[in-house]
């Protein structure tokens, strides 16, 4: 065996190197999301209907994920919705400016068949339940952009609960419509 010292004995252990990655992209949302975003900038929620199974998707991505076909038909939706599921967030999430406790929920707007995730507020957290009727609270019109947070949150409506088997099946006119 060589008596020479192994070179690595004198070295500090390297636990990391800095190699920052900067890549620039001209991102495009897609044709279907672009149509949705153009409408939400005007304060209108729109979905797209599958020509095969008639399901209305919101926000639309351009296809019916079940059937694998393009969703061309645009459908105007209500900003009234039904809570399909929810959770009360009690711990702070790093980077999230919203102070806990707060509620995130799957809500289905009237006229759509698919839920999307948004915030609930102006409510007693412990009283929120599945089937609860809610309505969008919009930012002032001057602040509307191509963004989901044009809707600040959904707040409870004083309407009868939707039976579980009818959630996601309401017409645009709501439970009584």
């Amino acid at each position, binding site marked *: 065996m060589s008596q020479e010292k192994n070179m690595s004995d004198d070295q500090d252990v390297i636990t990391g*190197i800095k*190699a920052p*990655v900067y*890549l*620039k*992209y*001209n*991102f*495009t*949302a*897609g*044709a*279907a*999301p*672009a149509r949705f975003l153009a409408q939400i900038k005007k304060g209108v929620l729109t979905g797209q209907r599958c020509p095969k199974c008639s399901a209305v998707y919101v926000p639309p*991505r*351009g*296809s*019916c*994920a*079940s*059937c*694998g*076909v*393009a969703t061309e038909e645009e459908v105007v939706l209500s900003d009234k919705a039904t809570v399909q599921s929810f959770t009360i967030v009690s711990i702070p999430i790093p980077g999230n400016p919203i102070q806990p406790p707060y509620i995130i929920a799957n809500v289905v707007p009237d006229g759509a068949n698919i839920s999307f995730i948004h915030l609930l507020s102006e409510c007693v957290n412990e009283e929120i339940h599945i089937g609860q009727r809610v309505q969008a609270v919009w930012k002032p019109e001057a602040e509307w952009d191509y963004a989901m947070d044009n809707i600040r949150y959904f707040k409870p409506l004083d309407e009868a609960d939707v039976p579980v088997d009818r959630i996601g099946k309401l017409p645009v006119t709501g439970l009584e419509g």
Partner: protein
Amino acid sequence: MKQIAIVAYQQTDSVSDAGAVNEVELIMPVLARTFKQAGLKSAQDVGFTCSGSCDYLQGAAFAFVAGVDALGAVPPIKESHVEMDAAWALYESMLKIRMGHADSALIYGFGKSSPGELPIVLSQQLDPYYLAPLWVDSISLAAMQARIMLDRGLITERDMAEVVSRSRRNAMNNPHAQLSGDISPEDVLAEETYLSPLRKADCCPVSDGASAMIIATVEQAKAWGLPYVIISGIDHCIETHNLGMRDLTDSVSTRIAANRAGMNAGKVDVAELYAPFSHQEIILTRALGLDEGTSVNPSGGVLAGNLMMASGLSRIGEVFNRIVKGEARRGIAHATSGPCLQHNLVTVLEQGENA
């Protein structure tokens, strides 16, 4: 061992900017045409689905998951993905069929390279400690490879220009081509150098698009009553990521893959080679020992349009089309990945009984 055959292949046009379409919108039309060609309705009608794509291209995380929305995956399907060219998705699909887990498979690849700076994006596939932090782009690496070839007298700039000229002229018969035209080698040589010694024409263009294929066991292909082309061999081989350790003037991995895939068991009528740079077509042609008896890149190859993550699958699809049309009986398709032809896959295709 069950013989596996290709029964359908489609691709989009190769375009420099597909505009405001997302992954689903890019894939769906080409999938619809592929299903129609095979007489199928959706991914529900095949036993396995596998795609190839790379989220770095369009800069959208998990873009390949969004792509599943194009499949009609309700009820759930058996599905997989490779962060590679879809030629490797074909490889995975063949293993799935050979293991007896499926009788047929849908393979698709898609790439939207236009949103980013592709040569820079590709620098991030290099070794993360020594090379990626230097931002060495894919064209610069290819230029160094070409420089070695020229300095050793293995090629001349005119040889490279002839490759470009043949690509442009062949591409005039390819309706999906992005670059085509009656361009002479002199026209190419009159161009200024871009990244010396490469001219822009020596480099494949940046393209957006997708391609898709359906394969099946020969029994299944016959049951469907479709013309089919047999995949008689497929293999792939990779070289070290350390560019200094490679002989960049040869493609040893391509030659090994081709031998293992059985290329030399018969005459090669047609070869579609994934050569993103003109000098690389010469490296590949020599590594494979192809002569005048083989028509090389009759589609124009990827110098006419390079759908990242789909071009390798498209090479296989182009050979399938030639054999189905009766223009060839036997051919090979080559796919590549990584800098300077690092990782190479070779597929051997042969006429089926009713092709």
